[in-house]
């Protein structure tokens, strides 16, 4: 549903005089929350959100204790997950840090599902619950429902069912084949998880029941199909010759887990199914990894807008809005690069700055804005922010909407660190000659394709040693990290035959690795 012009017009924040005339009684004047208050809060925020055209899945608000929050952390926010030691490790580390006071827990966790599940902590005050409801139940929720990546890649309606299926299936495998074996397989799959997504091909979402039904057919079918590929029975010479020229796969494959699932010669059917489960998880999380800045920025922008509206309408007290502002400021704080607490760019700060600036550009455009954003300057802000939310991901969002003003406010500067050079060069700053370059570099920083090495499956030696060859296209001469050999070992355990990795720069192989190692093959 797209917000009509009228809705936008109605929803402009009222001037303070207008607001004072129709101030209502606050929902609560104390800092304690009750279930009735939460219901009322949600109702009021929901009404305001509707005015702003936020289209959401139904909300499912769950109140949990702090130790349950730690559980939720450990399972990457999934309500149901299969068992694996790495989640235990995650849990142990969160528990450790929390108990030693080294970190606070998030106020909420929200899950991209339908209904959209949001966990609220019991410890939150009334104001914090309001903030969290606005942020998660209306901000993130509408992002999940509206953003094109989520619409394309995830199926919010069936994810919970699929998680249940995955958990039960893996538990069954553990019973049948031993915990150790399943764990080793999951380790291998997790190592390749980032390479288990289709980046360009569009998937077809299917329901969990169908998934279950298909699973058995698939197991048989794949095995039969494989045998055909790996047939070793003698054939006529002509066919062999034809086959020798055939390159398999005919095109490089980016989705390694998919390739393993379909073509690894030695895997048992249950192993293929587990590879598939991990692959599906990776695919489900793929949009989140690409929309961190936008998703958080969007949610922050809306909790800020909605809370201020609540205050204007008199639904929350002055004390509440002060408490809210102090939390909000802490969340959107961006430490400078030389600050001891600097951990890179804060996605909340950057995203919130851009969305707020979009609103400013529409409402109070300057000459600079007219030059940089002729399409939107002076336009309807509600339509502009909704359009940005729907049709972009971090990379393109920054490339499109990062304005000179935001760059100046955040005092962004770009550096180049080249190992051929003995010093780091500042190649652009927040000035007239640097805006474009800073923006470009920042955008590419959020491009997963740049962040992760570009590695694809190049070919399989069908008639020889059945080895699998990966091709790494080097970008900016950047070599692979030190865990590469270990990942290759995992890949080898899945493939069952030798695995080679070539790093290619300008069409030339500059480094080779292999598992099992080959003499003279290491770089």
């Amino acid at each position: 549903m797209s917000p009509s012009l009228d809705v936008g017009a109605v929803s402009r924040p009222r001037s303070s005089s207008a607001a004072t005339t129709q101030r209502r009684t606050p929902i609560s004047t104390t800092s304690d929350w009750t279930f009735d208050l939460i219901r009322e809060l949600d109702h009021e925020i929901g009404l305001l959100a509707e005015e702003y055209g936020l289209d959401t899945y139904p909300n499912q608000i769950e109140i949990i204790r702090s130790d349950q929050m730690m559980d939720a952390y450990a399972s990457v926010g999934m309500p149901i997950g299969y068992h694996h030691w790495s989640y235990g490790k995650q849990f142990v580390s969160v528990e450790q840090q929390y108990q030693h006071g080294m970190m606070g827990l998030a106020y909420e966790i929200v899950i991209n599902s339908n209904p959209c599940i949001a966990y609220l902590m019991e410890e939150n005050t009334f104001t914090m619950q309001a903030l969290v409801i606005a942020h998660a139940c209306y901000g993130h929720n509408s992002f999940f429902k509206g953003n094109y990546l989520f619409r394309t890649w995830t199926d919010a309606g069936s994810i919970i069912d699929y998680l249940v299926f995955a958990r039960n299936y893996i538990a069954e495998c553990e019973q049948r084949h031993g915990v150790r074996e399943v764990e080793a397989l999951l380790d291998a799959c997790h190592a390749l998880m980032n390479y288990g997504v289709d980046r360009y091909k569009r998937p077809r979402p299917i329901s969990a029941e169908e998934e279950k039904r298909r699973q058995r057919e698939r197991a048989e079918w794949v095995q039969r199909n494989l045998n055909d590929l790996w047939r070793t029975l003698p054939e006529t010479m002509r066919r062999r010759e034809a086959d020798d020229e055939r390159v398999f796969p005919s095109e490089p494959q980016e989705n390694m887990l998919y390739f393993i699932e379909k073509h690894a010669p030695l895997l048992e059917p249950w192993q293929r199914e587990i590879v598939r489960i991990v692959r599906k998880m990776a695919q489900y999380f793929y949009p989140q990894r690409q929309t961190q800045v936008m998703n958080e920025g969007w949610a922050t922008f809306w909790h800020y807008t909605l809370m201020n509206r609540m205050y204007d309408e008199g639904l929350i007290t002055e004390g509440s809005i002060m408490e809210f502002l102090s939390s909000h400021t802490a969340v959107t704080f961006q430490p400078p690069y030389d600050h001891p607490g600097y951990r890179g760019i804060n996605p909340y700060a950057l995203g919130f700055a851009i969305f707020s600036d979009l609103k400013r550009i529409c409402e109070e455009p300057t000459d600079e804005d007219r030059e940089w954003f002729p399409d939107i300057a002076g336009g309807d802000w509600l339509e502009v922010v909704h359009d940005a939310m729907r049709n972009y991901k971090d990379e393109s969002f920054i490339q499109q909407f990062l304005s000179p003003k935001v760059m100046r406010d955040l005092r962004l500067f770009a550096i180049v660190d080249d190992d051929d050079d003995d010093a780091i060069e500042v190649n652009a700053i927040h000035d007239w000659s640097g805006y474009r370059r800073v923006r470009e570099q920042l955008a590419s920083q959020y491009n997963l394709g740049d962040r992760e090495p570009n590695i694809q499956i190049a070919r399989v030696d069908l008639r020889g040693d059945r080895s699998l060859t990966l091709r790494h296209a080097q970008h900016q001469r950047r070599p692979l990290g030190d865990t590469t050999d270990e990942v290759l070992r995992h890949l080898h355990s899945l493939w069952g035959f030798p695995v080679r990795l070539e790093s290619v720069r300008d069409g030339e192989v500059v480094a080779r690795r292999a598992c099992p190692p080959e003499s003279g093959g290491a770089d």
Partner: protein
Amino acid sequence: MTYIIDRRLNSKNKSAVNRQRFLERYRAHIKRAVSDAVDKRSITDMERGEEVTIPARDISEPVFHHGSGGRRSAVHPGNKEFVQGDRIPRPGGSGGGGGGGEASDSGEGVDDFVFQLSRDEFLDYLFDDLELPNLTKRHLKGDASFKYERAGFATDGVPAKLSVFRTLQQAKARRIALSGQSRRRMVELEEGIAEAAGEGDEVTGMRLRSELARLERRERRIPFLDDTDLRYNLHVKKPVPTSQAVMFCLMDVSGSMDQATKDIAKRFYLLLYMFLKRHYERTEVVFIRHHTTAREVDEHDFFYSRETGGTVVSSALKLMKEIVDERYSPDTWNIYAAQASDGDNWNDDSPICGKFLSEQLLPLVQYFAYIEITQRSHQALWREYERLAGEHADAFAMRHITAPGDIFPVFHDLFQKREAA
């Protein structure tokens, strides 16, 4: 549309399985940390958790990622002094590292993984793959504990234990049983009345009606609830077999034993005590110290008071036998003894010790461990005990300790799980 759910009452420890898997995977690391901790820590604070450190390289989950080197660009906030074209010397002179923290880019951080084991987990790992020798010999009934168990229903009891369900069930069964015959007759009568009315037979109708009325009166007189219906929950007292152990600590406190040696002994005793406590519901400790004569003392005196004089080990053994005879009947107690000494003994006494142990004490005890804490060469007592160890391999063990670091390995060695012979 919003649903609000209170999940606070849901079970916690959803991650318990995952945590367990994690601990299982890093068992070797954890065991090493635990055994290091035992050497370092004063044994008195053994009853707490421990911090375990696992090197980052062992615990990282590998992924394909970019290594350092090549040409990389980054955007950072908070510029104060830079202008375009500035050249900044590399921090630390190393290649790579983008001026600030590019933590997200390089995958895992390099810090070691540190976490806390709980007290129970710590002790579990501490005593993992250790077991008490001859544990199964005496699992005996203690007199102290009883447990109430359900044992069906009884026909009498106190009102508090009335089983309402059973009672009503019983009452209903009784009512059905008592009225069955007359109800069958009542159905017949009703049919008869209807038939009589149809035929116009007034007399038979009257007779049948009066019988029906009599039967109905009779049925009403069957009580709804009768004393015989009452059923009570029955609980019976069952003795719970408890296993109990007594641990005898025997120590030489003659002039040759200095405080350092006693501390080593103390650690050994504490380990043994904790270990016994985990296996037996009741564990008592008896402290016997001796020089030329033996005395039963309390814990503080045992470890800290100093005495001088010669050494007669057999005096302690004899006192122990007396105490066993007096208070700890081997029928009901599992008896363990640990003797610590620097090896000094009155030369003529050692054969007496050997004889006394093998004839009088060893048949009574579950296990007798002797540790000799000395830097010097062994003396007569060690040689006498060595002979004993050969003869009573299942109940007697001896080890030699020179430094505090030996305590845990020796302890471990003494109580190692043995293959079932």
